[in-house]
């Protein structure tokens, strides 16, 4: 620690530049992680807010809500309880004169069931009539107001916004919560159709007619684009970790090579190799802690400055895990020059 700190104090410019590089890499990793999580959460925000464990779908729908239709016959053995909710989903476009059109997902729900009751309203109240809807807060950000009348593609008539709801996005699109009869009309379905799916808050098994249960994670994994998007971000973040490891290793290796004569003198004086090795590792840890901490601070400033429309989320746990990951990369990188230190010949001190 003594040697590590003294050297950093003496070589301020050199180590500041290394910290700057670590800061920039860490910031990039944080930013990409936050964007990946932000986008992923916009895919699954509504599902997560329901805290559902199981979904019952038409087994021929290839795990797609849009393709799934469940009839009364399919659900005749299903036992309703407080943890169950029907949903009827259909993509739509909401329009109102003077406001931008919004591509959305219409979710027909029942007012006696938990999805209706668990809506977190940021403004207004829950819909009470068939021509009323609650909408995701995105609508508010796009200029819509409470009381606005929407025209929905595929539906007759107009629907009045009675409330803005938090955490109501599905597959990146904002949700419009309405009723199941409206959904049936939008999809031109008969009265024997109950819903697109049944959402259940517990793990259960159900198979009757065309209805089959699936873990909710399977539905999420099958969301269009979700898997590819997560894979892309995951690869970018993974590569950045590897690149950061290499950069730290190369920096420390070059620094070590430049210091070999000093190390030889210290070894000749009887300073044990372990002291020199631990100084190098401690130095890497200090540089990483400072660089990552500064990147975290910069990230918080970025989050505060970015407009709400940017899909970004940076939960503390992700910040912690990423920061620890970067620290581990730093420690790993610092092991690269260890061999050179151990091989220093103290006789080089006399030349």
């Amino acid at each position, binding site marked *: 620690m003594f040697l590590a700190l003294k050297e950093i104090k003496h070589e301020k410019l050199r180590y500041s530049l290394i910290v700057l590089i670590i800061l920039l890499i860490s910031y990039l990793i944080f930013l990409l992680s936050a964007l990946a999580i932000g986008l992923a959460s916009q895919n699954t925000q509504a599902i997560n807010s329901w805290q559902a464990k199981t979904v019952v779908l038409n087994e021929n729908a290839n795990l797609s809500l849009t393709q799934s239709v469940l009839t009364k016959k399919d659900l005749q053995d299903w036992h309703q309880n407080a943890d169950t909710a029907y949903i009827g989903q259909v993509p739509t476009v909401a329009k109102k004169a003077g406001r931008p059109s919004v591509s959305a997902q219409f979710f027909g729900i029942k007012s006696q069931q938990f999805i209706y009751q668990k809506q977190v309203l940021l403004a207004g109240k829950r819909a009470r009539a068939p021509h009323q809807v609650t909408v995701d807060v995105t609508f508010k950000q796009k200029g819509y107001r409470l009381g606005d009348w929407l025209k929905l593609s595929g539906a007759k008539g107009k629907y009045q916004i009675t409330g803005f709801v938090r955490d109501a996005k599905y597959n990146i699109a904002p949700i419009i919560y309405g009723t199941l009869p409206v959904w049936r009309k939008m999809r031109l379905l008969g009265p024997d159709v109950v819903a697109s799916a049944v959402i259940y808050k517990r793990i259960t098994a159900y198979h009757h007619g065309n209805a089959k249960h699936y873990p909710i994670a399977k539905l999420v994994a099958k969301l269009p684009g979700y898997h590819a998007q997560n894979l892309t971000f995951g690869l970018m973040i993974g590569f950045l970790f590897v690149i950061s490891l290499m950069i730290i290793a190369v920096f420390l290796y070059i620094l070590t090579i430049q210091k070999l004569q000093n190390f030889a003198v210290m070894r000749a004086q009887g300073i044990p190799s372990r002291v020199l090795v631990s100084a190098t590792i401690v130095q890497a840890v200090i540089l990483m802690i400072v660089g990552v901490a500064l990147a975290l601070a910069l990230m918080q400033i970025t989050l505060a400055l970015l407009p709400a429309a940017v899909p970004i989320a940076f939960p503390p746990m992700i910040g912690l895990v990423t920061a620890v990951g970067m620290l581990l990369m730093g420690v790993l990188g610092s092991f690269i020059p260890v061999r050179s230190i151990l091989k220093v010949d103290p*006789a080089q001190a006399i030349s």
Partner: protein
Amino acid sequence: MIELKHVRKIYGSGQARVVAIQDINFKIVQGEVALLMGPSGAGKSTLLTIAGSLQKPSSGEVVIAGQEVSKLSTRELSKLRLSELGFVLQAYNLVPFLTVAEQFQLVDRIKHNGNLSHEELDKLLQRLDIKQLLNKYPNQLSGGQRQRVSIARALYPNPSVILADEPTASLDSERAVAVGQLFQQLAQEYHKAVLLVTHDQRLETYADHIYQMLDGKIQVADN
């Protein structure tokens, strides 16, 4: 005390084989100053590195403070160098990113006992006229100042043997005489064994033994 018995050092093999030193029998005892002189390439530096346990001989025996060096592990060798040997090197044995005061603190952090006391260090710094330089970094010192700090650093762990490589190379006559007197005093009053590898004839006055080295062999020039 350092004793070398039939020491030989060979570098390379085949046609590239070079005998750097051969059949060296050499002893430096505490209380004496020995001068090792000779032309460049005579094997002085090789002898110094072997006497200082920085490298092992190809054959022969090296005994430092009663311990046979070839039997010691790397860790034990480090410990031996730290506690028994003080190096004053031509390239200055100072860590560039530590102030003069921190050079001594580094020793304290590794060797907790047996170093010079505050008073002893103070006296040494005054004697070498470097007390006012405690907060300076090596690159802020002149060549002569660095050499004197280097001598103080070597003496700080209170070693029984001092090995110096051209210790007066950067010093003017007045300073060189002071350093010569210091080494003589260290040998006589503090009971150190001192080996100085040098070209500087000004130091001959302070030596108990002067050895001439030529072609890897020692010849006693003066006793």
